[in-house]
């Protein structure tokens, strides 16, 4: 294995799961795995251009590929729908044990009422573990702009959870009906 292959293998092992987790919050598993695979193919071609840390660059590529999928007419998967699709009884049980001040289904409904832009900002920092400066690179804005978006998203989330569920989100209603 030469140096490039070694570097690429290390990059893949370090970040592939995280790119997949990001893609899974926006697309169904078979699409997400193709997106992640394509992301790393691009990374291989641009191996010498990757910065350090590489993860924001990789997620930025995955984000662009997801947008292209949508441009081609692939069904858009909102984050709330992805949460519903991936959730199971263990998530409800973990929620109950942790003594949250809201019921899980109410929290989901509140989240569903937020914009995708707010949810992406929150998920990048809270779920995908990026520092705000790194997340700014993913969404392609300045760090200052990202801080503002994050601050506003947090406020809107807190307000949504305080005020309770609005009209049920169509996706969540469809999910519930399907069960």
């Amino acid at each position: 294995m030469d140096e490039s292959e070694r570097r690429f293998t290390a990059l893949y092992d370090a970040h592939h799961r995280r790119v997949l987790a990001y893609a899974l919050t926006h697309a169904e598993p078979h699409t997400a795995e193709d997106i992640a695979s394509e992301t790393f193919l691009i990374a291989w071609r641009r191996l010498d251009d990757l910065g350090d840390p590489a993860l924001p660059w990789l997620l930025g590529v995955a984000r662009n590929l997801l947008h292209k999928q949508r441009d081609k007419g692939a069904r858009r998967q909102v984050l709330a729908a992805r949460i519903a699709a991936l959730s199971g009884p263990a998530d409800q049980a973990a929620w109950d044990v942790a003594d949250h001040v809201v019921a899980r289904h109410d929290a989901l409904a509140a989240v569903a009422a937020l914009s995708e832009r707010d949810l992406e900002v929150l998920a990048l920092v809270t779920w995908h573990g990026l520092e705000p400066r790194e997340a700014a690179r993913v969404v392609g804005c300045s760090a200052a702009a990202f801080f503002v978006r994050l601050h506003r998203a947090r406020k809107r989330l807190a307000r949504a959870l305080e005020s309770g569920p609005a009209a049920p989100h169509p996706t969540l209603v469809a999910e519930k009906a399907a069960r």
Partner: protein
Amino acid sequence: MTFGAKMNRTDAEHAFRALKPAALERTADEIHGRRRDTDLARAMQDTMGREPRPARTRSRRPILVIAGVTAAGVAAAGAAVLTAGDGGGSHRGPATVAQAPLDARTFLLTAAHTAEKAPLTTGAYYYNREREQALIRFLGKRSRRAMPTGNAELAKLLPFHVAYVTKSQDSWNARRSPGLARTIVGIDRKITFRSAADEAAWRALGSPELEDWSAKPHTNNYDFRDIKPSASQRRDDPGEIAKLPADERSLTILLHRWHDSDEKAARGHDGVGTGMSYTDTVFSMAPNLLSGAARPGTRAAFFRILAGEPGITLVRDTTDLLGRPAVALVQKEGKKREHRYLIDPATTRYLGHEAYMPEKPDGPPVRMLASAIQAEGWVRSLGARP
């Protein structure tokens, strides 16, 4: 919950964090295991903007078949050959832990999958019955006569005999801590010997007590409600363990924080650090973070963290103190000491711990201490058992 209650941003973010489905990382792990070799081979064969590279075969080692491999998968990987040994830990398909993982990293990542599927349980008290065996060395009559009184260093050089003291202990700890607690010690105590000669030497001494305290079974009741435990004491508290993060990143941050605070506390005490690396700290937390008190997600996250730490090896096809089949995660301390954490290969349940060190300065390591969890679980009341 009551809507209309003030929700601060910390609570809101906490709630959002908790909405992350456990299946997200689990699914990512499964896809990663399935796609890794194919993706790597596909990329490295790509010539756009790069020089073409010849197909590579991995080093030739005995080939093991891993569950879930398909002919198409192998063909797509070009000339990659399945290998045994301590390579990159690739695992294909949804291999279960019981199906012969090859190395510590592969075992740990697969164990994470299995651990995540365990049911979440809770209760008011955490119960645990643990059996422990300690190797006790004692001097026979002749050695005692030859040894000047109180010379412990000289005693180490004299011939000694070996006994094993084995006993069980029940414990209950409140979930909401500090609270009430109870232990019952000295259960089913047994003394055995390495050889008939060792037993004869013990009887010749009048069958003395081999431990410094009373061996009779007795119950201890504790009321910790007025006591404020330290931060490091709280780490052992089942109620605190149950609240630990269930995602790898947050748990890693916490482990680093624990390591740093232990180091700072040690240096503040006498200017000398703990002597433990971060990996040592992580490994030492296995009995807590893999215990039944921890949430399935926490155990899974900890398995993944262990998988990324260096120097942890695997001993397969071993048994624990109770004779149960086990896989041992091993960390060596120098050349002659090691600690082992024993895991049930089928369920990934933590079974117990073993410590190995030399009996004599130039001797081989022997098992000095072993413990095994006989029963554990959350119960509704003090004194109840699962």
